[in-house]
C-alpha cells in the first residue's frame, strides 16, 4: 500500500441554505478543495451522500456532480452508509489511492436536507434505522438515542447535566468556527430548559438539520511532498459494521462498531489512543459523544459523562473532542459530516484553525457513524 496524504480541503458555511441547491453547495466545496490542493486534474471522485433521493429526489449523484464540477468523464462513485456516508467515501478514496489505482482522488460529502418538511426529513433519516424492527413501530433517531441515554444513565450513573455539558462544550467550540451553522454558546440551564424531544433528550441535545458539503483531495504522500504541500498523511483507516437494530445489540450503552473501527485504525497507524492530540467524533446527540469517547478508549467504559464534567474533552483539555463544534454546533448534513471531520482535523494539523487551534497538534482522529452505530468509520491523520 502507498502512503496517502490529504493535499486539499474545502468547506463553505453550513446552515439552512434556502437559496442553494445540492449541486451548488457540493461544487463550491469541491472547488475550494481543488484550489487548496492546487490541482485541476483528478483521476477519480468519490461522493458520500445518504439520501439525495428522499431529500431532493435526485439519484445518479456521482455523475451529476462530476458533470457540474466540470470533471466528466472522470470515474465517480457515490457511497452510502447512512450518516457515515462521508467517512466511508473517505475510506474508499483512501483505498483507491493506497492501492495505486488512482493518484489524485477528490472525496466529497454532501446533503441538502431543508428542501423537505421536518416530517419528511425525519422519515428520510429514519431509513438509517431498521425499518422492519424499528421504523415501522414508530421509532425515530431521537427515540433510539434516548433509549441509549437511559441505558447509559442507568448502568453508569451518567447524569442529565453531563449530557448538557457536551452541548455546552461543543457550542463553545462552534462559536469559534465561522463555518458552523449555530456558532453561538449555550448554557447547561439553557439545554435543560429547551424543548423535550424524546426523554431525556432535549432539542439542544440533538444535532440540527443542515445543508452542507465538504471535500478533500487525496494523493500519494510522495507526490504531495514533490508538490511542496503541507503533507497530512492518513495513517490509519478502520471500518466496522454492527446490527442496525438497536434491539439486537448485546449492550445498549456501548457502540461496538466504533470500538472495532477505532482499534483497527489505531493498529494500522501504529499509534495508541494517548498519542492522539484531537478528535472529531459523531455527536449526533450528546449521549453519542459520551459513548464514543468510551468506545474509542479515550476514557474507560462508563466514564464518558464524568470526562466531560472534568473538562478532559474540552478545547484545552487533555483530549480535545470536537474542536470544530461537532455535529451539534457545526451542523449535520449527514453525508457531508464524515468529510467535514477530516477537513477540521487537517486544518488543526496544519495549524490553520485560528481561535480554536489546538497548539502543537500533530495527530488527529475522526470517527463517523451511521444510525445508532450500525456502521462506524475511523481515520487517523498525522502531520509530518
Amino acid at each position: 500500500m502507498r502512503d496517502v496524504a490529504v493535499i486539499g480541503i474545502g468547506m463553505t458555511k453550513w446552515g439552512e441554505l434556502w437559496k442553494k441547491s445540492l449541486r451548488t453547495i457540493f461544487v463550491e466545496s469541491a472547488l475550494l478543495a481543488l484550489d487548496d490542493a492546487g490541482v485541476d486534474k483528478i483521476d477519480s471522485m468519490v461522493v458520500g451522500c445518504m439520501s439525495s433521493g428522499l431529500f431532493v429526489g435526485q439519484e445518479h449523484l456521482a455523475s451529476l456532480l462530476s458533470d457540474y464540477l466540470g470533471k466528466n468523464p472522470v470515474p465517480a462513485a457515490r457511497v452510502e452508509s447512512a450518516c457515515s456516508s462521508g467517512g466511508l467515501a473517505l475510506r474508499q478514496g483512501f483505498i483507491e489511492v493506497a492501492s495505486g489505482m488512482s493518484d489524485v482522488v477528490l472525496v466529497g460529502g454532501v446533503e441538502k436536507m431543508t428542501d423537505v418538511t421536518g416530517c419528511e426529513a425525519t422519515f428520510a433519516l429514519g431509513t438509517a434505522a431498521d425499518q422492519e424492527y424499528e421504523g415501522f413501530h414508530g421509532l425515530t433517531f431521537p427515540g433510539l438515542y434516548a433509549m441509549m441515554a437511559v441505558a447509559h444513565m442507568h448502568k453508569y450513573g451518567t447524569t442529565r447535566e453531563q449530557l448538557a455539558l457536551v452541548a455546552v462544550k461543543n457550542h463553545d467550540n462552534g462559536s469559534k468556527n465561522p463555518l458552523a451553522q449555530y456558532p453561538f454558546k449555550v448554557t447547561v440551564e439553557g439545554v435543560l430548559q429547551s424543548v423535550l424531544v424524546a426523554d431525556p433528550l432535549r432539542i439542544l441535545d440533538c444535532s440540527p438539520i443542515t445543508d452542507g458539503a465538504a471535500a478533500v483531495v487525496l494523493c500519494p504522500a510522495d507526490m504531495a511532498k514533490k508538490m511542496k504541500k503541507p503533507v497530512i498523511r492518513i495513517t490509519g483507516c478502520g471500518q466496522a459494521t454492527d446490527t442496525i437494530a438497536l434491539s439486537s445489540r448485546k449492550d445498549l450503552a456501548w457502540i461496538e462498531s466504533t470500538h472495532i473501527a477505532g482499534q483497527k485504525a489505531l493498529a494500522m497507524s501504529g499509534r495508541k489512543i494517548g498519542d492522539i492530540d484531537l478528535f472529531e467524533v459523531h455527536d449526533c446527540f450528546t449521549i453519542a459523544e459520551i459513548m464514543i469517547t468510551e468506545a474509542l478508549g479515550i476514557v474507560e467504559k462508563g466514564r464518558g459523562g464524568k470526562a466531560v464534567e472534568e473538562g478532559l474533552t474540552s478545547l484545552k483539555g487533555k483530549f480535545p473532542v470536537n474542536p470544530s463544534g461537532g455535529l451539534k454546533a457545526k451542523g449535520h448534513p449527514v453525508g457531508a459530516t464524515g468529510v467535514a471531520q477530516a477537513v477540521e482535523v487537517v486544518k488543526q494539523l496544519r495549524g490553520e484553525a485560528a481561535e480554536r487551534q489546538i497548539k502543537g497538534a500533530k495527530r488527529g482522529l475522526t470517527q463517523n457513524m451511521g444510525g445508532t452505530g450500525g456502521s462506524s468509520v475511523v481515520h487517523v491523520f498525522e502531520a509530518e
Partner: protein
Amino acid sequence: MAGIVGYGAYIPRNRIKVEEIAKVWGADAPSYKKGLMLEEKSVPSPDQDTITMSVEASKNALRRAGIDPREIGAVYVGSESHPYAVKPSGTVLAEALNATPEVHTADLEFACKAGTEGMFIALSLVQAAAVKYGLAVGADTSQGAPGDALEYSAAAGAAAFIFGRDKLVAETLHTYSYTTDTPDFWRREYQYYPQHGGRFTGDPAYFSHILGAARGIMAKAGMKPADFQYVIFHQPNGKFPLRAGEILGFSRNQIDPGWLVPKLGNTYSGSSPLGLTSTLDIAKPGDMILLVSYGSGAGSDGFIFRVTERIDEVRNLAPLTRDMLDRNKNYIDYGVYAKYRRKIRKAE
C-alpha cells in the same frame, strides 16, 4: 391628499388559551408561550365568518367616517377564508352597508396581506379620483390544522378602512410594495388546512419581505425609524414583529400599541390592519405611523400615515380595538373550540 376617513375593528369575544390547545396534543405550552410569545387567541362563534366580521368592522369604520355609505364607490374584502370559493364576500358586505348598487367590489386573497392589498387598491382609486370613498377590509377566520404549530396562532378578526380625500383622520404619505415568488405557506383548492414550510417561513419569507418593504418605504420617504411614533408589522406570532423591529432599530414603545398578537393570535388578513386600528386609537395629531404587512407567497405592503386633528373627534365614535381585545372575553375549552371551528360535527 388622500388617506383614511374612518377606521373600525372587530374581534370575536371567544378565546382559547395556548395551554388548552397544548394539553390536548401533549405539547409543551411553556415553549410555545416563550418561543412564539403567544398566550391566547380569538375564536369566531359558529355563526361568524369573514363576511359577518367584515360587516361589523365596516360599520365601526362608517361610524368614525360619518359619511353616507352610498358615496362608497369601491368595496374590497381581503381574506384567505372567504366563506365561498365562488361568490363574493364583498357583495354581501356592500349590501349590508347599504352601499349598493353603484359600487365596484372585489374579493382579494394574498395569504396574510389581502387586507392591505385592498387598502392599496382603494387608496389608489381615491387618489385617482375614480371614486369618492373606497372601503377596504382585512378579515379572516383562519384555521390551523389540529396539532400543527399554526393552531396556536390562527385566530379571527377584522379591520376596515374607508379612504377618501376629505375628512381625513390620517393622511397617506407614501406606499410601497415588495413582492417575490417565495412559497412559504399555501393551501390548494379542496384542502381544508394550509401547509407551511416550517423554518422556511422565517428568514427567507417573513423577514426578507418585511425588512425589504420597511427599508424600501423609508428610503423612498427619506425617513428613519426615529421619525415614527409608531410602527406595525404583520404579526404571525409575538416574536417575529419584535425581531423585525429590533433589526430595523424600532423601540418597544413604537411597536407595543399595535402589537396585539400575544392575546389575539394571528388574524391573517386582519393582523397588521388591526395593529393599525389599535394604534390609531391612541395616536395624536401629527403622529407618523409606519405599517408593513406580510403575505406568504410572498409580499409586503408598506404605508406611511400622518395622523390629523380629526382623530380626537372620531376616536370614541366606535369601540376601541384594545377594549374588544381585553373586555367581555369568553374562554372556551378545546371541545367547544373544535365544534365552533367545525373540526368535529354532530351526526346528522
